[in-house]
């Protein structure tokens, strides 16, 4: 990144470079939105070797198109090849990595040393980022991976701010941390619940999120205590069930701390999340990071960034392990409140400044009389009541009900392609 700032952070003089904002892109469309909304880099999954076998993963052709699109913004594309391979996965790996290099992928995110070594041998232009799946949380291990030729280490989500500081002081290698999104409640990679419940291999992309299922907790007691003490429920009728479900991570309120820690890349989780989610979250963090570098002394958290994030959030959020060990309020027990308050209803594809009429691609149901909100990466942000709707031929519509149909409507302010239109969910208006 280009912007460099000299300042005193935590009692020491440091040179702060603008960190990379790294966003997930589960599809080519999401990649385009992530980049357009301000990501410096995106990470995607290919057809093999990734941990989201259910995601809409990229073909090499789509990767090429994604790399080309991102390069217009100066953004990079990384590919997650973060499985723990089994013997049978070894065949085909060399060709796969060569192809990634050929289509212009900048880096691969790797957990298994087998893939680290193979990439260095057959695709040396690919940077290697050690995945959080390695659960790296000490400087000695970071040093080990640096010596192995890894360009970047994605730390374990369990590392605290103080531990990150210490790692940065000891080793000169790029450090990436997760700043937003869903979290494994286990140490990454140290969970085979899915294997046991469903015969799906969690460390090869088969995770079925058994940690978010409902469990009853019993105390069996010891054999010595005899049968009376056995099998006592550790809950009462009507109590919430036990779950291993972590709230989502959200560090929007702590951007200065993160920047001053010297972390090189801020990662947002969510290759399975919607285009609306990715655009909204990237937009908020982009603005916060830029605001800090514009004027660190007068930086203030803006309420609207928080509000924006809550419009996309799927779950309640917290700060994970950054400041303290997560307590009972950092976990979800019982029914999960659906926190999402907004639906993505339309995507701006065109705008006629003379008539003030926008063309919007329909993404969900909306109709005249409803309040909608437009937002975009370059400051577009306003609400309005939908008035008339027309189709492409000018015929008036009573509602936008056909998926992807181009719809025309008058907007209260100018909009641009890639701007989005969302609508509050809840009781029908």
């Amino acid at each position, binding site marked *: 990144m280009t912007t460099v700032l000299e300042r005193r952070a935590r009692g020491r003089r440091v040179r702060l470079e603008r960190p990379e904002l790294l966003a997930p892109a589960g599809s080519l469309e999401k990649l385009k939105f992530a980049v357009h909304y301000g990501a410096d880099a995106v990470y995607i999954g290919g057809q093999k070797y990734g941990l989201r*076998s259910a995601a809409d993963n990229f073909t090499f052709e789509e990767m090429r198109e994604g790399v080309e699109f991102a390069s217009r913004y100066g953004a990079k594309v990384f590919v997650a090849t973060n499985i*723990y*391979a*089994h*013997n049978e*996965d*070894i065949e085909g790996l060399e060709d796969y990595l060569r192809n990634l290099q050929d289509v212009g992928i900048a880096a691969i995110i790797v*957990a*298994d*040393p*087998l893939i680290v*070594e193979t990439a260095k041998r057959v695709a040396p232009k690919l940077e290697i980022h050690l995945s959080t799946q390695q*659960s790296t949380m*000490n400087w*000695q*291990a970071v*040093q*080990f991976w640096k010596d192995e030729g890894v360009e970047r280490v994605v730390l374990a989500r369990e*590392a605290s701010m103080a*531990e990150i500081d210490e*790692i940065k002081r000891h080793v000169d290698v790029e450090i990436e941390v997760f700043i937003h999104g869903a979290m494994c409640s*286990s*140490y990454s*990679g*140290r*969970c*085979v619940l899915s*294997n*046991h*419940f469903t*015969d*799906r*291999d969690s*460390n*090869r*992309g*088969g995770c079925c999120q*058994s940690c978010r*299922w*409902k*469990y*009853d*907790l*019993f*105390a*069996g007691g*010891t054999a010595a205590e005899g049968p009376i003490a056995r099998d006592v429920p*550790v809950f009462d009728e009507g109590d*919430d*069930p*036990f779950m*291993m479900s972590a709230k989502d991570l959200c560090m929007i309120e702590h951007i200065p701390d993160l920047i001053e820690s010297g972390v090189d890349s801020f990662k947002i989780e969510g290759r399975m999340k919607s285009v609306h989610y990715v655009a909204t979250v990237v937009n908020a963090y982009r603005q916060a990071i830029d605001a800090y570098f514009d004027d660190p002394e007068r930086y203030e958290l803006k309420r609207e960034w928080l509000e924006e994030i809550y419009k996309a959030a799927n779950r309640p959020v917290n700060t994970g*392990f950054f400041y303290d*060990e*997560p*307590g*009972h309020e*950092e*976990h979800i*027990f019982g029914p999960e409140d659906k926190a999402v308050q907004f639906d993505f209803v339309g995507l701006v594809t065109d705008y006629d400044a003379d008539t003030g009429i926008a063309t919007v691609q329909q993404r969900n149901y909306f109709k005249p009389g409803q309040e909608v909100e437009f937002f975009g990466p370059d400051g577009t942000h306003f609400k309005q009541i939908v008035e008339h709707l027309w189709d492409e031929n000018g015929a008036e519509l009573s509602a936008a009900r056909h998926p992807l149909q181009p719809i025309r409507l008058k907007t209260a302010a100018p909009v641009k392609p890639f701007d989005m239109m969302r609508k509050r969910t809840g009781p029908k208006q």
Partner: protein
Amino acid sequence: MNKPELLIPAGSAEQMAAYAEAGADALLVGDKRYGLRLPGDVPAEALRRAVPEAHKAGVKVYAALNHIMDNDTVRTLPDYVKELAAAGVDAVVYGDPAVLAAVKAHAPQLALHWNAEMTSTNWATASFWGRKGATRVVAARELNLEELAEMASRLKGVMEVEVQVHGMTNIYHSKRKLLHNYTEHLGRPSEGQSYNPERGLYLVEQERPTERFPIYEDESGTHVMSSDDICMLENLPELMDAGIASFKIESVLKSAEYNIAALRSYRACIDAYCTDPAGFTFDQTWLETIQALQPSDRELSYGFFYKEQVY
């Protein structure tokens, strides 16, 4: 045929002696600051007496340093590995590269066994750690027999393969104190509550009422264990033919009586097969002595040895 080793974790000097007597060839011990899910603590000072005792009986002693290490623990690693070496420990079991670095710098005489729990899944990665100095890979319990056989054959002459053949496995490890958290969520005091293995806590997933998953908390977080116990006793010859070098019986959350019975059965089976593979017949009483002590709510299973998983 090289006779495979029979290995068991021991939680005290007394257990070390009892398990050696029952037929173990090697004992895994450790300190909870460095080792995960041990049946008890055997501090380095205690090893100064216990290791020579074990060696006299022809039994090896390995130290578990398989925790995911933080900066604070890394600072203390050099002293700890020096103490282990001074006590005469034969090998260190590690997953975190920080341990590898500490052993190479401060106690190079210690052998290294690479054990990354669920993530030791292929022979090529094992061989990577082999080139870094490990002489053994502890294979993930989620591999099947074909995968293990290929691993052993690919690593033949280079690295030994250790496989768990009996007992429960860890299926989830979190740094979070989830049992404390749950109690507090229910509005009850968590202070003074015990969440240790002795309390016998277990989870029942609401759709699977017959399976009980033990759960406990310790300094390293929350551990969930499998609802079944692996038992490969009847099929041990297949594993011996595959060239597996070490068979581990997991002793955690089991009584010493149970573990001793398991050791005796596996000892007898290994000895009988190695003495005369062609004339070997399986003695049902080996299995029956284990079944007699098997908790009624825990099935004896083949784990993942004969399964194909999807993803």
